[in-house]
């Protein structure tokens, strides 16, 4: 189950995620993001600092989010990634599609 807080920042919406980005717990997140895109948001940042787990469904969600925002000329960024997750994203070459940042 993933908890989140969506924050309006300067030119983007920041989703601060907390919990497991896994199958079966992302419905609310998905709906919230869809609403933001419908309201004209083009840039979305996913703050992954407190994401403890991510599975293929989580990868699928991020990919879908990316595809949705690309359709509206937008983009996503995933920030505060742990080293493991960062490497995982690189292995999947997700970094060639959207911006990923490792936490410092």
């Amino acid at each position, binding site marked *: 189950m993933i908890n989140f807080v969506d924050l309006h920042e300067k030119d983007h919406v920041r989703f601060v995620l907390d919990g497991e980005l896994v199958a079966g717990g992302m419905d609310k997140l998905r709906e919230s993001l869809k609403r933001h895109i419908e309201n004209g948001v083009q840039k979305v940042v996913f703050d992954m600092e407190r994401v403890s787990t991510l599975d*293929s*469904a989580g990868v699928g969600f991020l990919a879908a989010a990316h595809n949705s925002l690309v359709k509206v000329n937008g983009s996503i960024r995933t920030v505060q990634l742990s080293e493991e997750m960062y490497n*995982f994203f690189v292995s999947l070459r997700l970094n060639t599609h959207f911006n990923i940042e490792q936490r410092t």
Partner: protein
Amino acid sequence: MQDSLLNDFLVECREHLEGIESDLLAIEESGKNVDSELVNKVFRAAHSIKGGAAFFNLSQIKVLAHRTETVLDMIRSGKLQVSPEIINILLNSFDTLRSMINNPDEMDSVDISSQVGALQEIVDNSVTEKERGSFNRSTRLADLSGTCSVNVPEIDVKTAEKEFQYIYLIEYDLLHDIEMAGKSSLMMLNSLSRMGIIVDTLFDIEGVGTLDDEPVNSIVVKLIYRTVVEPDLIETAVEAGHEKIVCIYNPHSKKEKTDDTNADTQKTETFNDAGNDDKGGEAHTANLSQAGSSSVEGRSKNPVTVTETVRINVEALDTLMTHAGELVLSRNQLIDAISRNDQKALKTSAQRLNFVISELQEAVMQTRLQPIGNVFNKFPRMVRDLSKTLNKELHLNIEGKDVELDKTIIEGLSDPLTHMVRNAADHGIESQSERTKKGKPAAGTITLKAFHEAGHVNIELSDDGKGIDSEKIADKAFSMGLITEEKLRGMTDYDKTSLIFLPGLSTAEKVSETSGRGVGMDVVKNNLDRLGGKVSIQSAIGKGTVFNIKLPLTLAIIPSLIIHEEQERFAIPQVNVIELLRIPSVQIKDRLQIVGDTEVVVVRGELIPIVRFADLLGIPKTYIDPNTGNVEIDRRSRVADRRSKRRSIDGRMDVVSAEIEQRRTGKDRRVRAASDVNIVIVSSGLLQYGLVVDNMRNTEEIVVKPLGTHFKKMQEYAGATIMGDGGVALIIDATGLALKAGITSVSAAKNKGNIADLSGSEGEHSLLIFENTPGECCALLLELVLRIEQIAANQVEYKGGIRSMQYRGKSLPLVQLSDAANAGDVPLEKELVVIVTRVSNREIGLLGLMPVSVEERNFIVDTTIHRQPGICGSMIFDEKTVMMIDVFEIIDKVYPEWKTEKKRDERNVGTTVLLAEDSEFFREQVTKYLNDGGYNVIATSDGMEAWEKLQEHKNEVKLVVTDIEMPVMTGLELCKKIRTDKTFSSLPVIALTSLAGDEDREKGLAVGITDYQVKFDRDRLNEGIKRLLS
């Protein structure tokens, strides 16, 4: 299971690493003409290690093996020239690999950065500009069917080609293939990263759809993966089915050499391209943070120990099986025979069983045998490294690498031999400049030889270095308090040299990295003793040293002689048994003698010390009274008879009274067989002695059982065994028993002949052999001969009753043996020779006949049988009686006026000269010469006796004349003692010797010898004495 697989892999790695050192050294030696087959061999070893390490995720080993493989490939393809530096780096790398493989639990902590860096530098220095430009280009690779192709960066392809890596295309459905199998995608990808490089990932992100679409239930990624893992292992390594893996690059498919086992052609693989359209179902949750280990994590958390293994060929196993089968048959026959109580069948079965068990034992023993080359093979590298460290040129010869020994003994030999080789290189072989000065080749040679002899294995380690100075060893041992002066006195050179085995003894001037801490040779000896081995040393100063190690073939089962002593049984290892003697009671008085206070047995002219076995072990001796049949205590303290002959310590027979002689020849009281004496002649190294025992039984093969720790200090026992009847027999340690008996080297002196060829001059003299009349052989000391001239009969003149000849413008007096002795006249019609010598400062010629020859011999002169004026004794050469000529006596007889001219110098009367000479013959001769010169002579037979006499007659003795080589105390030792004693330090000392080489003189001068004189030159000796005393 995993542990077992890993263990097998580590064992295999060790096998790969065996022999790599010698191969690399051979590659280095071949230089430009590199043997590609040899390089291939080493390359394949590195390659196999690398591949297995990758599979088991042993990253350190994998990386290092990989780098060495790269360099080896460059060598074999000619891209890199072999140099000592490159070989050093490779040797170092393989050493590190070996270390990691032998200590798998610590391999992660091993720092391989320097080796990797060094190897990488070699590779980098050979990368061309062309290769560097390939970074930005890509190559299209496809599977064999061509249905699947991808672009792969050219640099990756080139790297794969260079480093023998494969490139695969692997498809994963992250959900179905990984997460639903209970694994973590992240962990899987991390694991792949450790085994290889994910060159690229093909992920159809658009295929996932948008937020408006139903979430997909499969995330398919395709990895372009570069790895060393081979096609037959890739499925297991990456945990994907074969349909999901395609090999799109095989480095071996381009190579001509196909002897590499992994040089398979590319597999035809297809993979399922169809994405999974089923978007229903629930994705299986996999916790990213799970610590679940991938199954390619070959290393378990438990410590891994590499178990000992031995390679056995299948034939040997077949033989074992056959014998096992025979054993079963024999057992069945035995059981059947017992059940029928058939004595004949029992006997037959027992014989058969005996035979089969012997065969089986032999076969089992064979499985443990390994070639000694396994130990020898490490020495070429070691000597090479020592050569550099010590800055000496060293050659190592190895012979007998195929000689086989028990595995345990092989393993135990490594340390002692290593130390001995180091010592030979460090202390034995001189520096190049020293060797050149001595006229030796600049390169020192160390030889390691193994050979079979008499049921055991001999290992000889020899060098042609400076030899061991036994005096220096003895002095050092004495100064360190390791031995007393008293014990030193009784020691021969061999004993003194053997002192190097004392703990703490090192005569090295300084401790070097190589050797010199003084903890080596005693440990060497102990290690060898534990292996049942004996070590002996032969050495000659200036020439070299030979260590001989004698080892049993196996420690576990040894053939032994079973002996009985009172009610007890003992086993003496056959390797120590020289011969068995039974001295009939009537021969005791002749065969058993007493030398000093030691009983000896005469065996073919040699005197061998004997000890009563029961006395050594503290077993009370008994005997059965023949009259009463009762068991009585044997109160005799000696084995030898009271009538037995006695000798003094110098070997001379004591003169006995007529009464004793009468008793010796009279009727024997001891006539019964029970009075016979049984002696086992036993050897331990060069030491031989006789054990007097009650009874000797048969030889049996016994199983050696170690004694308990509480028996550890009992040096006389080597172990114990259980006999066929269940009883226990103790196994004798021949060396320990000798130590207990206090036997040193009474017999060692006889072995001086064994090292005579090394020392070259011990006890030898050069004799001129000629004939007086046909068949009448004569000998003259060569030192007395000035010239030999062949003459015609008509050159012999008789003028005024004097025989002479014209010689070099002067008249040369001629004499012959018959002028003084009862011998034939030289027949003038035969081929004549004149032996020119000098007596009383005049040249004279001794007539004789051809042929003339020179013999270098140890000889013993009988001064009794043929003794007469002109003949000082006789000896037997090649079954001929040869008479020793005393030319001085002949001259004295023919020209008595020459002697009276040199009257006893009145000034010499009352002057006492101390003479030390062990040979009775020479002692008598020299005493006579000195008496002729007018001197009083105190004659002694060895240096110790001379020292004692000197102290007794300190106010009388004015000069010492001494032989060099003597038992108990040599002439040099005597001189040293004289020089270090304030009372005698200025006493002149003349050394009498037939050794007159520069080296010997130097040795003599070093200890304070005043002058050297040849033994048999009366006039020069007396002149020399006169000169010194004036």
